[in-house]
């Protein structure tokens, strides 16, 4: 593999920091053309580049191919050798973006963009969180013109989009729970109404209202929990379909739907709660009437 500086490791994802901002957009937009795979070792070795794996799939590029790349559609192009393919990371903020990403050695990109000896940002590794605070404070106090941010703060800022989606999903969830509650109450009411003669007989042979209510509540809870168990299975299956569909649509390893223990516990607890509530309301309604009236007399 021709290279005058270390090539990108052939495995992916690429280990160099992802290019961002102005030059990422410019480069992403400016792949001018693909030259046929040509041995480039005769003269000066060509610089290497790592391409988006989606571009490999779409354009049929292979390792070792030579491509021409420019900073702008009408700018001068440079030839580079494809040394690696990088898979898309599971980054929610990029999931709906269709453009390809490429990764260059810093010096190559600076030359391509006529960017001089400049960078957009530095990433700094600190020993611990205490050191992070000290470093951030130190840089912001001394290095005028620079601004240091904690990764955590940046994540919060870039995660605003997903906070909105979370709120949206939560609102949809509340509406769904409301619909489920009404549905369950309706079903329980129907079931109890259907068995009013049975309830009347139980009351007439001496069972207390409390016992009847308890029996109905237990039955309602059992139905709700059974429904929740079936729903969990169905939810898990739908989750698999959703993930497969969206991962294929957006060509990303991002997991869109995750059935966790917490989610299952919440669903079962909610169902059981709704079952108890619906059963109790339905039972109270039926035991409130005299047994003979329930028998239609």
């Amino acid at each position, binding site marked *: 593999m021709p290279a005058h500086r270390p090539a990108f490791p052939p495995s992916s994802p690429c280990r160099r920091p992802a290019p961002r*901002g*102005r030059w990422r*957009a*410019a480069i*992403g*937009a*400016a*792949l001018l053309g693909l030259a046929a795979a040509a041995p480039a070792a005769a003269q000066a070795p060509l610089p290497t580049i790592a391409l988006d794996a989606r571009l490999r799939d779409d354009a049929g590029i292979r390792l070792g191919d030579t491509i021409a790349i420019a900073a*702008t*559609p*009408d700018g001068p192009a440079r030839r580079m050798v494809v040394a690696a393919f990088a898979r898309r990371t599971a980054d929610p903020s990029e999931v*709906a*973006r*269709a*453009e390809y990403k490429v990764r260059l050695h810093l010096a190559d990109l600076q030359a391509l963009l006529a960017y001089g000896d400049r960078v957009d940002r530095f990433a700094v590794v600190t020993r611990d969180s205490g050191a992070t605070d000290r470093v951030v404070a130190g840089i912001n106090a001394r290095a*005028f*013109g*620079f*601004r240091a941010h904690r990764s955590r703060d940046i994540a919060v800022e870039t995660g*605003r*989009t997903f906070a*909105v989606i979370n*709120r*949206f999903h939560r*609102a*949809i969830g509340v*509406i*769904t729970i*409301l*619909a489920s509650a*009404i*549905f369950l*109450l*309706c*079903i329980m*009411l*129907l079931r109890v*109404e*259907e068995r009013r003669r049975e309830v009347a007989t139980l009351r007439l042979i001496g069972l207390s209202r409390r016992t009847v209510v308890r029996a109905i509540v237990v039955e309602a809870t059992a139905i709700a929990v059974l429904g929740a168990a079936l729903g969990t299975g169905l939810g898990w299956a739908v989750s698999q379909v959703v993930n497969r*569909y*969206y991962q294929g*649509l957006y060509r990303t390893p991002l997991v869109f739907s995750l059935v966790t223990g917490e989610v299952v516990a919440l669903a079962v607890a909610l169902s059981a709660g709704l079952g108890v509530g619906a059963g109790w309301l339905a039972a109270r*309604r039926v035991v409130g009437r005299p047994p003979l009236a329930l028998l239609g007399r």
Partner: protein
Amino acid sequence: MRVALAVASLARHRTRTALAVAGIAVASAMLLDMVMLSSGMRLSFRELLDTRGYQVRLSPKGTLPFDTEATVGDAAALVAAARAQPGVAVVAPNLGAQLVAPRGDGAVTVAALGVEAGVQGDYALREGRDAAAGELVASPAALAALGRRVGDTVSLGTGWDPQLRAFRELAPRRIVGVGRFYFLGADQPVVAMPLADLQATADGARRDRISSAMVRLAPGAEPAAVARALAAALPRVSVLTTADAVAQADERVAYFRNLAFILGSVSLAVGFLLVTTLMTVSVNERIGEIAVQRALGVQARRIVQQVVAEGLALSVAGGLLGLGLGLVTARYLDAILGDFPGLPPDIAFFVFQPRDAGTAMGLLVVAGTLAGILPSWRAARLPIAATLREEAVA
């Protein structure tokens, strides 16, 4: 008569009917919301693009307008060539960049648009006038971020030079107007200035460059045909009609369309199940009554019609209630999604159209009718004598 019987039958079990109507209303509200969501953003985006009557967009080859920071050079010749094309009435070039203004110990970054005031389609003036050389129009968010008002002067530079420890190309500009920017987030600080002013920044790196251009067509011109001609004449740019841009945006919001389809289907299924369950139980309870009706000579068809009418009445009542509920929840959900950072103020996810209400109601009515058919058909076909005997024994 059949409708009256159906209503009387429903009125006999008020609590049950009320719960069923409430359940159908919630399902119907969700269905309406999802129908609105599936088409709302597309409609809203199309309206946004058509706001100023520009039907075609030009952007650097391989990019969408303002989707990247790419620019295209030799802009004056490019714009002139576009204006010379048949069917083109107006071409509005623009350049996007970031500028910084010192404020206190730090700096405020604002998005800057270079436009030609006479033809620009990026903002509407809310106050003041358009900017001449050395002046700018600012968004309310920019005024707040800069701490300035109309009539004030603000110094804007292109960045910070750490070696000189000074802002690069810092120059005073007078704020002469307040604008409402269509394509940028309401909370985003934006200023618009003459195109030539912005092109003169960045040490000449932006000279004669633009980020995109909008094209308004002459009356009667066909956007697709003009777009093809522009693409052939201007090989350095990508040409998008409004329809193309909407299709591109559609791809990006596929998630919401799919979600709308899934949740809409679930809502419909819930409504269907609710009516089916209710009608099945209701028919089971009235088996004897139905057998008596049949013994008296009422046709099976009439029995089916009466039970279907009950299901239909439930669906229509729940559906109508759900329409109102759906509009309220749509507004609430739209307000949540409206918090997306950088979302243009005119973009809405849930847009009500009478057709959407018709679709939701139509689907519910069909589901309600289908839900009533099976139990009623089963009841109408029961052997009359055997059923009467069983009921009498019971």
